[in-house]
């Protein structure tokens, strides 16, 4: 069995999750604080990948990333990166695709903290970033874990977007979901089955660990 698609899938999921973490913490923090009129629009945009068919995203990414397009041409010329048919393009697309899975748990977690927490820190002269990283985030560990695991798992399960912009290149864009589709089409059910079983088992373990940790079972066990 060829392990490359599985390894690539986890590389993609890991990179996407890390980028998402960097993007989502400030975004979720801003969303939980702001009273701006922009908030509902931003929240809508963040949630849209939940509802839109992945093919819609994939189709627009294909057009946007194409060097025939202003955005694609600009990136190509200025940064020398071609996003279509590349790992970088998949990461960017996956970040958009999994954004709600990271932003929403963090935002909910932050909103559920009592305002007195940061107010107390503010009276002690702590800056906004110290408040966020030393006080608020440590208090929403469960939400962070949920966001990380769900984004990771959602990226592992990505198919439609990758199909549209990946180009099925071994080692670069042929992720496990595409490899499975390929094997089924080539009537190679045994290979499709082994990829699928591995994904099935891994996602089960991943999600189970979130439920165990967030449900307090692990803590109880350690006591």
């Amino acid at each position, binding site marked *: 069995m060829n392990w490359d698609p599985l390894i690539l899938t986890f590389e993609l999921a890991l990179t996407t999750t890390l980028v998402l973490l960097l993007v989502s913490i400030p975004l979720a923090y801003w969303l939980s604080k702001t009273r701006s009129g922009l908030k509902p629009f931003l929240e809508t945009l963040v949630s849209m990948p939940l509802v839109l068919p992945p093919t819609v995203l994939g189709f627009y990414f*294909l*057009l946007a*990333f*194409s*060097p*025939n397009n202003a955005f*694609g041409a600009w990136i190509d010329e200025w940064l020398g990166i*071609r996003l*279509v*048919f590349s790992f970088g393009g998949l990461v960017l697309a996956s970040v958009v695709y999994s954004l709600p899975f990271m932003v929403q748990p963090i935002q909910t977690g932050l909103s559920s903290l009592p305002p007195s927490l940061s107010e107390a820190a503010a009276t002690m002269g702590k800056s906004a970033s110290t408040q966020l990283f030393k006080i608020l985030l440590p208090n929403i560990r469960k939400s962070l874990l949920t966001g990380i695991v769900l984004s990771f798992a959602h990226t592992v399960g990505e198919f439609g977007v990758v*199909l*549209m*912009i990946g*180009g*099925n*290149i071994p080692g670069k864009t042929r992720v496990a979901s595409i490899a499975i*589709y*390929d094997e*089924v*089409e*080539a*009537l190679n059910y045994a290979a499709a089955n082994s990829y699928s079983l591995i994904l099935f088992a891994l996602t089960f373990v991943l999600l189970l660990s979130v439920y165990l940790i967030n449900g307090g079972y692990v803590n109880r066990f350690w006591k």
Partner: protein
Amino acid sequence: MILLAVFLWTGCREKQEAGGTLRIAIASNLQYAVDSLVAGFEKEHNIACEVIPGSSGKLFAQIREGAPYDLFLSADLTYPESLFKAGSTLEKPEVFAFGSLVLWTMRPDIRPSVELLVSDEVRHIALANPRIAPYGRAAQEALEFYGLEEQVRGKLVMGESVAQANQFVQSAAAELGFTSLSTVMSPELRDRGSWVEVDPQAYNPLPHGVVLIQTGQAVKPEARKFYRYLFSKEGKAVLKNFGYSVNE
């Protein structure tokens, strides 16, 4: 009670739908030609048709698992023959047309040619997946024929079917792509970009097979009518018009 009502209602609906309409599963390269064939056929026989495009491999798997299609027009002969051997069809498949391979581009500044495949100007070459799509296999054979497969390996991007390889070319995400002559001859794409035919010596012929499938007890009589239309003078004229060669 409610469940029962729902079952009865959906049951009735299915019966109604199955009545007159003909479900035709087709390889996606045939889309344009079949749309035109269906229009002519519907006018002549007053039989409604539903066209289900997909890659030949996927349609094959679906039919083998009992998909309710009345006819299967494949981009090769292997899939219909396997269906026949597996007993999913009672009648032998028949070749109704031969396809041709072309190199196609949307870029106004380049003239497609085999030599161009190795040029630095071309960073991506789109083709259908050779493992599952006949036109992809033909493209790979052509690359091997010209001894280019090593040099262009890093440039190849694969769609799951010709239709998806077409998307890559049409969006200009890939500078060059292998596709079917029927794609560039279709009314929608006739004047888009430029193309050149690949020397037929460079790849094995691309026979397109059709096979009748019995849904339920037997092959539908309407399906037989379409089958005959496919081999009729009118049918052949349409196919030729879309870039296929047919046995006269």
